[in-house]
Each structure stands twice: as structure tokens, then as C-alpha cells.
């Protein structure tokens, strides 16, 4: 017996160990003598027994057949003189055996789990939302969990304006953001604006961009406008701000 063959098994054989088990236990012949066609048939049969022919099984099969092809081609090449090997045939067999036994342990444990799963499947559990009165968090049971300073800090962050970028070298253009700012500024002071009154003196481009800004605000629910007739006055109405600023001081 050439130990190299067994070593080769350990290195190259990447197929499912249950197949290897089946081949070794049932067929009792060496891999070298197995027609690859027979392997295909044996594996198809194996899949049949499993009752699954899914993508995973197909992938496993491809990996297996590729490994076997390589294994067989190596076996068929004339053997070179082998250098001294660490593993004797008995030890190599033991190592392979240990791996097969370890595999078999979990295969059998898996079968036991499958049985348990089937046994427990008829028990069904309730999955329903809590009744409304329990969904509310109980006020009495609540204790302080947060530091109010956290809110002050967060607000401070929000009040920090971003660093100002010097744009003096850029030729003046009409920016949508600026028009939005202008509109919002006006709407902060007055709930209604007449478009002509506010923007009639601006150039056409600025007026056009302002209209565009209005569309944007309308989309966001910040403002709406009405025009009773074509080319008639446009009245802009802003969203009314909440009264006061709460506890802000």
C-alpha cells in the first residue's frame, strides 16, 4: 500500500464524507477502480435518497466530481519515488477514520434534531400584538434614565453654523438655496406674500429661480400659493409656525 494515496485522499478529496463512507462501506472497492460514471450514478442515487436536488446539492456534486477527476488522474500517472513520509499507512487510515467518525457523529445528531423538529412542529405559538392598554409605557413605573444636558448639547451642535466659505471671487449667479432662504425669511415674518410685490423688481432669471424654489417648498409642505387667473397676482402662503418656542430661553 502506498501511503501517498491516502495522503492524496486527505488533500484532494473534498466531497461529502457520507458519500465517501457509502463508497467505502457499500462498494468496498478502491476509488481507482470506480468508473466516474458510476460515481455520478451513485451520487444521483444518494441525492434521490435524500429527497433533495437543490442548488446546494448540485454544487456539492460539482465540487465532488471535480475532486474525483483530479484524484483519478493523479492515481493513473506513474508513481514517482516517494520521499520519506511522516504518516504510516495505519496512521493515515486513522486520521481519515477520525474525520469520518467525527462527521458521522454530527450526521446522526442532525438526524436526531430533524426528528425533534418534526415532533415539535405541531405545537403552534401565538404571535399577536399587545392589547393597546399594554402598549403604552407605564408612567408610574418610569424612572429618570437620561440626562437633560444631552438635549442642551444636541441643540448647541445644531446651532453651530458651518464654517463660512468665501465666495467673493465667484461671479454672481442665482442660487436656488439663496432663493429658498429669502422665501423662508419672508415667510417667517409674514404669513402671506404677494409675489409681484416681493419679487417684481428682480430680473427674470431670479424670478424664475424663485418660482422653482416655491415648487420645492410646496413639495416639502412648507408653503403653498394660489393664482386665480392667468397672469394674475400670485399669493404665497407659508406654513404657520407653532406658537412660541416652548421652553427656549
Amino acid at each position, binding site marked *: 500500500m502506498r501511503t501517498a494515496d491516502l495522503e492524496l485522499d486527505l488533500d484532494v478529496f473534498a466531497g461529502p464524507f457520507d458519500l465517501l463512507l457509502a463508497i467505502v462501506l457499500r462498494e468496498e472497492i478502491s476509488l481507482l477502480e470506480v468508473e466516474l460514471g458510476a460515481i455520478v450514478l451513485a451520487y444521483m442515487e444518494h441525492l434521490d435518497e435524500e429527497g433533495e436536488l437543490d442548488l446546494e446539492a448540485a454544487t456539492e456534486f460539482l465540487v465532488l466530481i471535480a475532486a474525483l477527476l483530479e484524484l483519478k488522474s493523479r492515481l493513473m500517472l506513474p508513481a514517482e519515488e516517494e520521499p520519506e513520509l511522516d504518516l504510516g499507512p495505519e496512521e493515515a487510515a486513522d486520521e481519515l477514520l477520525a474525520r469520518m467518525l467525527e462527521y458521522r457523529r454530527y450526521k446522526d445528531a442532525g438526524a436526531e434534531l430533524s426528528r425533534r423538529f418534526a415532533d415539535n412542529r405541531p405545537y403552534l405559538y401565538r404571535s399577536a400584538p399587545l392589547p393597546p392598554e399594554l402598549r403604552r409605557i407605564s408612567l408610574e413605573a418610569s424612572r429618570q434614565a437620561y440626562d*437633560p444636558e444631552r438635549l442642551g448639547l444636541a441643540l*448647541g451642535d445644531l446651532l453651530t453654523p458651518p464654517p463660512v466659505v468665501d465666495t467673493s471671487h465667484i461671479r454672481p449667479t442665482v442660487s436656488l438655496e439663496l432663493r429658498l432662504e429669502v422665501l423662508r425669511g419672508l415667510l417667517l415674518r409674514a404669513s402671506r406674500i404677494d409675489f409681484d410685490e416681493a419679487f417684481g423688481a428682480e430680473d427674470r432669471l431670479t424670478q424664475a429661480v424663485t418660482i422653482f424654489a416655491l415648487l420645492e417648498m410646496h413639495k416639502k409642505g412648507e408653503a403653498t400659493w394660489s393664482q386665480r387667473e392667468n397672469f394674475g397676482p400670485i399669493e404665497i402662503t407659508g406654513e404657520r409656525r407653532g406658537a412660541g418656542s416652548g421652553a427656549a430661553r
Partner: protein
Amino acid sequence: MTEGGAAELARVVEALLFLSPDPVPVGDLIDACEVGEVQIRNALDVLAEDLAPGRRGLVLREVAGGFVLATEPAAEHAARRLLARPKTPPLTAAQAETLAIVAYLQPVSRPEIARIRGVSSESAVQTLGERGLIEEAGRSRFGAVIYRTTELFERLFGLGSLEDLPDVSAFDPTPEDAAELRERLLRAGEQRAAP
């Protein structure tokens, strides 16, 4: 159907009502159990008897949509203790910012929160709502939901009232700006959002 049959069917009906979160119409019970209406009615009678008030932790109720199991009122106190525990995991930065905006500016709309933060704040608003820290306070004229903080918020932050919120000037990087807090927040937010 025999007596035993009615008792057996009552058990199946109990199981069905247990699993169903909504009231089950008699017709659905008939279909599921593959029996006639008389059998189902008998089984429901047996079940109503078994689950008569004071006998078990559950009672059988007939409501508009059909039959439903409910817990008996005596268990409510314990149920509240078991299930209605306040959830107070640490606030994320997004949640803290959103909550600060609602706390200081309330009532405040979601578009406004988004403008101040410079990002859509839907998920933070939703989480704060689910935790009971903020609640809806109606709608703006434009249909946007507006928010305010809750009593639970004050409790969880140890505040006697909203007046006890920390003075923001202590955290204010631009205290010389006299403009109203809301206006300054919006302005800073828009500057952040601007490219």
C-alpha cells in the same frame, strides 16, 4: 355529534382563537374545522362555559367581528409590570438631536425637524414615538404632522416641567445672536444643507 365530540371540538376552537390575533368569525371556524354550524355553536358553548369569568386566566368574548380570547381583568396589573416596561436604551445622536428640537421648539413639524437637522429624520421620529418620548399634536395647515414631548419624556429626563429644560445659552456657540431660537436653528440647518 357526541358530547365528547363537542368537547374535542371546543379544544380545537380554543386553539384557533388562541392563535388568531383578531376576532374569528363563526364562518371561518366552520371552514377551518370542516364541521357544520351547529357543531361549532355547541363547541363555542362548551368553551364559553370552560372560560366563564373567574375560571381561567382567559375569557371568551364575542365582539363585532366574531370570537376572540382575552385575558381576564385581574391580570392587568401583573401584565403591565411584565410587559409595559419602559424601554430606555441610550439615545443615538440622531435621536438626541431630534428630541432636542422637539423639546425646545414644540410644537414642531417633521419637515421643520428635517430642515434643522439637514437630513430626513423619519426613523428617529418614529423610534421616539414608539418609546413614548414624543407624540403627535395634530397637523399643520399643510398636513404635516406636528410633534410635542410627552409626560413620559419629562419623567425619563427627570424634569418637573418643560421649564426645567437646561438653559440653551450654556451650550450656545453664538450667544450674541439675538434672533429667536427657532429662526437660528433653521438658519444653521439651511447653511448645513447648502452645498
